[in-house]
């Protein structure tokens, strides 16, 4: 038995099986959540590459889970140190699938979401790594029905998404080819320039980095909010892991002058573009889209704080560093961001039930019919904007301080973007609360929606109020980059 067999092929087969059960949504959700929890539990308890006894009795056989699996002449490798990554992936999937049932994400959400998770795990595990680009492209193809479900007309955002993601793949493949056999920094500056350009373009296209970000607000406006946020959150997150492992594997890439300055510049542009544009939108879905763009910018800013001479894994690993950001910072960002985005998407799905439009004008007074969804949406929005006492605030403050300690101008720019998000939050609040006619308060959310939304709000508040309980654990979670490097 090999680790890729358990955590890649088994859930892959399960996703195919679940697809044929798609008439029974409750069953699919239960099976999907159960399987993901089981896989996360196995990753927690089963060591890879070491003998494991199947029980307390000596007559039971001892098995060993090998770390690699040969597939058509290529290797899929999941080492013991990858277990934290597997726990993160499968717990994350279980979290999204559980909410998907309540958000009425449809019966294809679990099978296709699981297939996406499997393909992305395979992308992080495959050797040589250039195959990862092909697996990421397959993930994109699998995700399309989630964004454009049967019975609905195809919107331009989906086509843009498909186009940009597909055009990104060749750049990654060519980067992989150029890097084959290159151990140290090449002497030819032209060669280095070619690699940097291809690498940057490829990841910019796939991770929706400026100026290829335009499909994000289009999709959050057009598609089912929960499914859209799932796709937009999962793919760039895993691709950013892949990109970091890429930089970690070819350490000389980090010494290229201008690479991290470029990350910072693009990160700032994305934060400003996302924040300012969010402030001027009149559609809550588009506000969400521009907020996600700001979050991608914050990720780039975090990456840009790595000193070229240091290993990029300091952002994930537990090494001590001279940075003002603690090790594991990048991954700690995932928890508040994931919860806030899922909460926002769930609240939007609830609000969208009636009047089926998410324009500010059509949502007037909706807070009186959906008070819990309205509160949840605003909490999620303000949390992502870094509002004090909410989950993202401690991390944003640390990031701001770290950037400010190096240069005041980027810190000021970051502030502009964040102010834009806060303004967008207040505009949303006004749109949801204002009403032309007196209307009685009522709770129209279903019981399950109420519980899940309240749980999400509680978590955002709890993490924000007691950050010292959560973030140290998250900072130590990491080790992902160095170990996930294919």
């Amino acid at each position, binding site marked *: 038995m090999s680790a890729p067999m358990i955590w890649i092929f088994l859930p892959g087969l399960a996703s195919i099986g679940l697809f044929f059960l*798609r008439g029974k949504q409750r069953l699919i959700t239960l099976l999907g959540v159960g399987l993901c929890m089981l896989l996360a539990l196995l990753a927690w308890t089963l060591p890879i590459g070491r003998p494991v006894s199947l029980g307390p009795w000596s007559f039971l056989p001892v098995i060993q889970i090998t770390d690699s699996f040969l597939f*058509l*002449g*290529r290797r899929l490798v999941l080492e013991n140190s990858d277990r934290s990554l597997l726990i993160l992936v499968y717990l994350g999937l279980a979290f999204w699938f559980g909410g998907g049932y309540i958000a*009425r994400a*449809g*019966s*294809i959400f679990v099978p296709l979401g699981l297939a996406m998770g499997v393909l992305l795990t395979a992308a992080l595990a495959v050797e040589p790594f*250039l*195959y990862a680009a*092909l697996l990421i*492209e*397959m993930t994109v*193809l699998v995700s*399309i*029905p989630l964004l*454009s*479900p*049967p*019975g*609905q*007309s*195809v919107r*331009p955002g*989906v*086509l843009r998404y*498909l*186009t940009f993601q*597909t*055009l990104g*793949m*060749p750049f990654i*493949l*060519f980067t992989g*080819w150029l890097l084959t056999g290159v151990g140290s920094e090449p002497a030819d500056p032209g060669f280095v320039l*070619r690699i940097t350009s291809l690498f940057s373009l490829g990841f910019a296209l796939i991770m929706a980095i400026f100026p290829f970000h335009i499909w994000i607000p289009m999709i959050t406006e057009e598609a*089912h909010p929960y499914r859209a946020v799932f796709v937009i959150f999962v793919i760039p997150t895993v691709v950013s892991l892949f990109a970091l492992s890429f930089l970690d594997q070819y350490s000389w890439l980090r010494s290229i002058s201008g690479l991290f300055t470029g990350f910072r510049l693009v990160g700032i542009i994305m934060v400003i573009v996302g924040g300012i544009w969010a402030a001027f939108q009149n559609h809550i879905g588009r506000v969400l889209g521009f907020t996600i763009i700001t979050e991608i910018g914050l990720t780039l800013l975090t990456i840009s704080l790595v000193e070229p001479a240091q290993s990029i894994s300091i952002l994930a690993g537990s090494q001590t560093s001279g940075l003002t950001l603690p090790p594991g910072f990048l991954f700690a960002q995932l928890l508040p961001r994931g919860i806030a985005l899922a909460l926002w998407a769930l609240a939007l799905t609830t609000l969208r039930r009636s009047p089926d439009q998410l324009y500010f004008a059509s949502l007037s007074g909706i807070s009186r019919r959906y008070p819990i969804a309205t509160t949840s949406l605003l909490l999620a929005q303000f949390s992502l904007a870094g509002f004090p006492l909410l989950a993202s605030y401690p991390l944003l403050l640390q990031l701001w301080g770290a950037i400010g300690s190096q240069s005041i101008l980027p810190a000021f720019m970051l502030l502009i973007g964040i102010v834009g998000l806060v303004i967008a939050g207040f505009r949303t609040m006004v749109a949801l609360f204002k009403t032309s006619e007196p209307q009685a308060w009522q709770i129209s959310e279903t019981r399950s929606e109420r519980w899940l939304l309240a749980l999400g709000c509680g978590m955002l508040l709890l993490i924000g109020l007691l950050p010292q309980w959560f973030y140290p654990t998250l900072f130590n979670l990491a080790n992902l980059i160095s170990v996930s490097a294919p």
Partner: protein
Amino acid sequence: MIFDLLAIPAVILVALTSLSILVVRNWRLRILFLAIQYIGVFLLVGMSWPIEMAVAKLVAGWMSGAILGMAMLGIPSYDLPKTEQYPIDVATDLATSGTEPSRQITHLFYLLAALLVVLAAISIAPLIERWIPGIRLAQALGAFILIFMGTLQLAFKSRPFGVVIGILTALAGFEILYSVVENSVLVAGFLSAITLGLAMIGSYLLTAPYMEGQE
């Protein structure tokens, strides 16, 4: 050897077919030109790959055309754009205001854009010979014509059919370049699978609006 002799005709073939795909409106003709385009791709890829691997590229391309064609047949005829009845693209993709540009101007615009793109490909192709060792000028030229024409289609077309054909065209150009540097059977298989996957997703996007909703 035969592939070397056919290299220049293959470049002309891909240039003409990609231009035709851009200009022609009728979906049947566009699929036909896509199928012919893949013959050119096969000839250019065959200069670097063994014939059996290059044939896989041709078959994948033809199958993707067939998949898209079957999907188009599944669309109710009343929902096809009216311009489908004309063999040549007349206006709708460019019509942004109430006044439709004339058919001639549209064609002239497409032709000029295509000419610019071909000129750009001609100017870039010799440079690529220095960057990718072993690549022939014809391969570089054919690849860049396809990449640029595919991108041009992506810029002009807004419906799933046109967009998917644009992506397939651009990807075919990239595959010609990549065939020079990578001859792994698995990579070739994956790329063919992606070509087919794109066609399937294209066919899904074409027919999804007519499927029963599942919200």
